[in-house]
């Protein structure tokens, strides 16, 4: 529906890809946190998160992403974010979040390639 959040997880070349559809806010972010936690608990440290179909993300959504990124970073991993919507990018810019352990990519191709480079053999 208009305010819903849908999350899909699949794997490509051993990299979990989280595709998010909808709006991430104070109401929906727990679903994202849950998803990331279960992926991390399974041992993945390189995670790709596709935000191409995210129409809206707020500070709590960024917080959930940053939390996940911190957790995998502690284990030597990274979170790669796919994001091409100017409005969503702007949020990352204003937050100053797109640094060390969380990188933005314009397409899934590039994000997965980058993640695979970091993947321990």
């Amino acid at each position: 529906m208009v305010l819903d959040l849908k999350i899909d997880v699949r794997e490509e070349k051993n990299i979990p890809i989280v595709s998010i559809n909808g709006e991430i806010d104070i109401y929906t972010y727990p679903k994202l946190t849950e998803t990331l936690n279960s992926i991390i608990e399974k041992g993945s440290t390189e995670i790709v998160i596709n935000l191409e179909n995210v129409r809206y993300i707020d500070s709590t959504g960024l917080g959930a992403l940053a939390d996940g990124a911190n957790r995998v970073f502690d284990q030597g991993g990274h979170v790669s974010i796919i994001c091409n919507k100017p409005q969503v990018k702007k949020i990352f810019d204003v937050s100053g979040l797109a640094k060390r352990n969380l990188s933005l990519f314009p397409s899934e191709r590039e994000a997965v390639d980058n993640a695979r480079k970091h993947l321990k053999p």
Partner: protein
Amino acid sequence: MTSKNKCIEISIPSSSEYVGVVRLAISGVASRCNFTVDEIEDLKIAVNEACTNAVVHAYNGKTGTVTVRCYPKHNELAVEVADQGAGFNVKEVLARAGKSTPSGKRPSLGLGLTFIQNLMDSTKIQSAPRKGTTIRFTKKHR
């Protein structure tokens, strides 16, 4: 602020599920004020963050009301987000705003107020202990 006649008001229970309702309403108000798509997004974020703060911080788990008032004006939209909750020390908080606590467990970055101040043209916060918080901001037409 201005005459009641030019006010669009939305009030919701201080519950996370209704913050999105306010975003929809504000995007309607902003679109009626002829803001650009980008400006509408900025306004959605600012109003969203102010409401989220009221939902998270104002009522200590109890349910209160969050009221959003929009005043369309000639060259800007003025918005007011008010709660009757706990209130906070504005000076103290603004001094540390934007500085993230590196090991905080909760997914909060202290970004809400930073977003509002960055995306709006003017911001004013009034808060009093146990009386509540009112944050006012304006967005000008470009």
